[in-house]
């Protein structure tokens, strides 16, 4: 019988991983820790190894990138029940964007090397985890496609210079 730990409960309570079984949650719990970020603190920095993956429990996280001439542009925010840092899933395991706390943020933080090791060791864990994360990835793709249309621009703005 698998003993239930508080971390395992927190993992199963999170919307992203709500469908995983107890056994998988127990495996993932070994890679997880509870973290808190204060306003303005970085969860991830752009272009660095994707060694952490976050499930936001409360607060707001701004996903951002530096744009020459414009400074930092926020391209997405994530809130409770959402994931930040999906770049760990695919090589080269590098973050494409930075992430910063907007106000106080509580999250579950996962060691992604630990996650990959457990997924490789037990394909059942990997399959269950990927089934949970794939909808988030597809939603990101869908969102990015619509945002690329610049829906609210005027006709002149859409036409470009």
């Amino acid at each position: 019988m698998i003993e239930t730990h508080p971390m395992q409960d927190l993992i199963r309570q999170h919307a992203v991983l709500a469908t995983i079984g107890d056994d998988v949650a127990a495996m993932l719990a070994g890679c997880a820790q509870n973290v808190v970020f204060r306003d303005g603190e970085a969860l991830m920095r752009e272009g660095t190894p994707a060694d952490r993956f976050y499930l936001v429990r409360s607060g707001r996280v701004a996903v951002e990138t530096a744009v020459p001439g414009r400074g930092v542009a926020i391209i997405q925010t994530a809130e409770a029940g959402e994931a930040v840092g999906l770049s760990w899933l695919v090589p080269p395991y590098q973050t494409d964007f930075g992430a910063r706390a907007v106000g106080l943020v509580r999250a579950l933080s996962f060691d992604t090397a630990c996650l990959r090791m457990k997924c490789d060791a037990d394909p059942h864990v990997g399959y269950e985890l990927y089934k949970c994360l794939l909808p988030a990835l597809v939603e990101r793709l869908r969102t990015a496609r619509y945002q690329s249309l610049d829906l609210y621009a005027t006709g002149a703005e859409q036409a470009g210079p």
Partner: protein
Amino acid sequence: MDAAVAVRADLTPRPVKVIAAQEVFASVATLTFQDKGFAAAPGQFMMVGRPGYGEVPISVSGLTDDGFELTIRAEGAASQALVRAKAGDWMGVRGPYGTRWPAVGGGDLLIMAGGLGLAPLRLAFLQAVDAGYDRVILLYGARDPSTIVFTDELDAWMEEGRASVHVTVDTAGPGWTGNVGLITTLLDRNTIDPARTTALVCGPEVMMRLCARRLEAEGVPAQRIHISLERHMACGTGACGRCQLGPLILCRDGAVVRYDRIAHTLSIPEI
């Protein structure tokens, strides 16, 4: 013969005075018109133009004690001439025309507005918070923080607490502490009861299509999703047919249309 005369009378603009002009942001302005006895339902539109520049259809965004307000974006020559208007200018005005947002009470009302699409929904929202809905939710998406319309009112509506008001933008700079992302992300973060929800959606057509599909996927019946469509409206009365979209003449059968009546035509690029 009488009917023909009546149509022509309806096509004749009446001179109406602009008594206030307020820039919302670059290329967008709200004009207040003095028009005693004016009445319009939420969602209806006016044909309005500065003499010599042609007319454009603009939804009524507000009612005053003795007139109405239109919020206009400068897109072509006619609307540019309107956005440049000053207090004291006279415009040619016809209407109101078209269908209205449904006057339903009870259950939950979900309003999804994108960009300047909040203007045609403003009246509906103001009436809805007093109309006996169990819950009114307003989800608003804009291009970036500088293009949010009715900023002061949105802040006031949030503070009043009579409705649940949420704003998101597609992109923002570091000073922005609100939501960033598509308007549908706000839907993910707000629980709705599909069986009790009536939805009003207005904004760019692709955004409305996206929202309507998401709402259907959530279980909101298409008959209770209403969108506001626009094509090249000319007469405003259904006489000329310029604004035909599939089976509908939008100036007469719209602009507010039940989604189930039009969903099948919205993905056809030829129309």
